[in-house]
């Protein structure tokens, strides 16, 4: 099954082995730094860091392309808007409210490249980190919020369960659609209204099934003594090591270099 949800590319590269918390902190810091600096030189530093991470991750280019493709129209739109609505005083081509200037072009290129670098760095994180590991990491990073009575562990558990059930439900949707197709349902033809109506025989069983599953899961968790609000230990506690320290140190170095250059 092709899904855009399960973006993770299974692998065992140095990037895959890093602690999800370290990766998340590094990517967030880089993203913020990326927007603090507006010079091509600074951008180049972050781009190089992103490309190095991409090469180290061992993820095929096609997988990155899949992450980029849906964003290309956004990049294109940004470029066009910045190019056409640049400052008017030094424009070498003007028409009505549109002015194309060197500055405008440069700024458009800069913004588009910045967006691309951002997607590249973000993709390295999502492609090399299992969604569940990422949730675990976020729950850990959110721990201080528990002092403010934010139920971070419960939120993390909810996200974990939701992620866990997406592939299961996709398989079941596929089965239900096949069963209805075997009964003559046609999902591919007709206008939007007809197509939406054709989905009723799929969505009704899907909702019923989801509620039943949720109910069963809640009962099963209770039977295994799940209690909200208490501290739970983990079977596989997150462990940060030397490599993660190196990552954070390198990230700090890249950010300083990118901001100063």
């Amino acid at each position, binding site marked *: 099954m092709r899904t855009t949800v399960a973006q993770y590319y299974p692998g065992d590269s140095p990037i895959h082995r890093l602690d999800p918390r370290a990766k998340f902190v590094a990517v967030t810091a880089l993203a913020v730094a990326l927007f603090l600096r507006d010079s091509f030189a600074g951008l180049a530093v972050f781009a190089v860091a992103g490309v190095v991470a991409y090469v180290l991750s061992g993820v095929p280019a096609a997988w990155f392309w899949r992450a980029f493709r849906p964003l290309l129209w956004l990049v294109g739109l940004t470029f066009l808007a910045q190019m056409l609505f640049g400052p008017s005083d030094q424009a070498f081509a003007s028409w009505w409210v549109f002015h194309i200037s060197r500055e405008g072009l440069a700024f458009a290129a800069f913004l588009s490249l910045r967006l691309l670098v951002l997607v590249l760095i973000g993709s390295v994180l999502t492609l090399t980190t299992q969604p569940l590991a990422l949730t675990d990491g976020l729950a850990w990073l959110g721990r201080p919020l528990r002092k403010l009575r934010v139920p971070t562990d419960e939120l993390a558990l909810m996200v974990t369960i939701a992620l866990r059930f997406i592939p299961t439900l996709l398989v079941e949707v596929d089965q239900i659609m*096949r*069963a209805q197709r*075997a*009964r*003559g349902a*046609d999902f591919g033809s007709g206008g939007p209204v007809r197509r939406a109506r054709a989905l009723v*025989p799929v969505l009704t069983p899907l909702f*019923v099934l989801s509620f039943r599953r949720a109910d069963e899961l809640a009962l099963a968790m209770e039977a295994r003594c799940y209690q909200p609000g208490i501290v739970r230990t983990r079977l596989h506690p997150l462990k940060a090591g030397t490599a993660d320290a190196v990552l954070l140190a390198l990230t700090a170095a890249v950010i300083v270099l990118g901001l100063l250059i």
Partner: protein
Amino acid sequence: MSGEAPATRGAADAAGTARGMALECRAVGFSYEEAQAPIPALRDVSFALAGGRSLALLGASGSGKSTLLQIVRGLDAPEAGAVLLDGVGAAQAAGAGAGAAGGAGGTGEAGYAALQKQVGLVFQTPELQLFASSAREDVAFGPSRLGWPDDEVAAAVEEALELVGLPPERFGDRHPYALSGGEQRRLALAGVLAMRPRLLLLDEPFVSLDPATRRELARILSRLRADGVTLVLATHDVDLAWSLCDELLMLDAGRVAAAGPWDLGAAGRELLAASRLREPFLVELWRRLGRDPREAPRTYAEAAEALA
């Protein structure tokens, strides 16, 4: 609802057309696309089943039974080989003229598609497919997609509900989700039977049913068999398979391990064991009584008669 050719119905009903559809698979191959590499599910699967005969499709979990049934119904296209319905294949129907299409009542691809619509497929846990707000409405979904006139659809619905033991006057207006598990299973079966299939494929129909519902379902299937519908029954229940099916097809990791009439001598027993199955109870009984297991009776009634 859709513009279905009336010929579809004609072929199923017309006097003179055999009720049961003949099925033949020629070197069928199929694999599932996965992220890393395709996983082969069926390899070089060939067998033939005459119209009106019943076939037990046996094999361990993951041996390709469900995949084969879905390919026969046309939900997936085989990557290699061909599925012939009443002797007509997809490519053949597309290329050849009226002569080849024969009893299909049509020619070309439309003829093959019309044949595929006479194949009923009952999924594993088919109660998942129930969606309408009344039993009658849910059963009517399939036949109304075939473009039958309203009175014909209504008649087919009543007949199917009656056949599965859910009398329409009692169950017709009930909400599908208000029925018990066994009733839901039978209602889902009625939804397929209302389309008057000439070839009925069932994927593990006995799973998670209580013994009484099991017997009830077996009774419905033997009635369909007596009516001349061709049956393919994928199951792990060898006793029911033995009592209901004339022939067997055993799959092992996507390949045919055995095909044809039951052979329950020593070799056949080993084959069953390789698929984590045991021999049918009546066959074992006959063997232990020192009789020829190949002549074991199919039903308890036959056994009682033979032993009396």
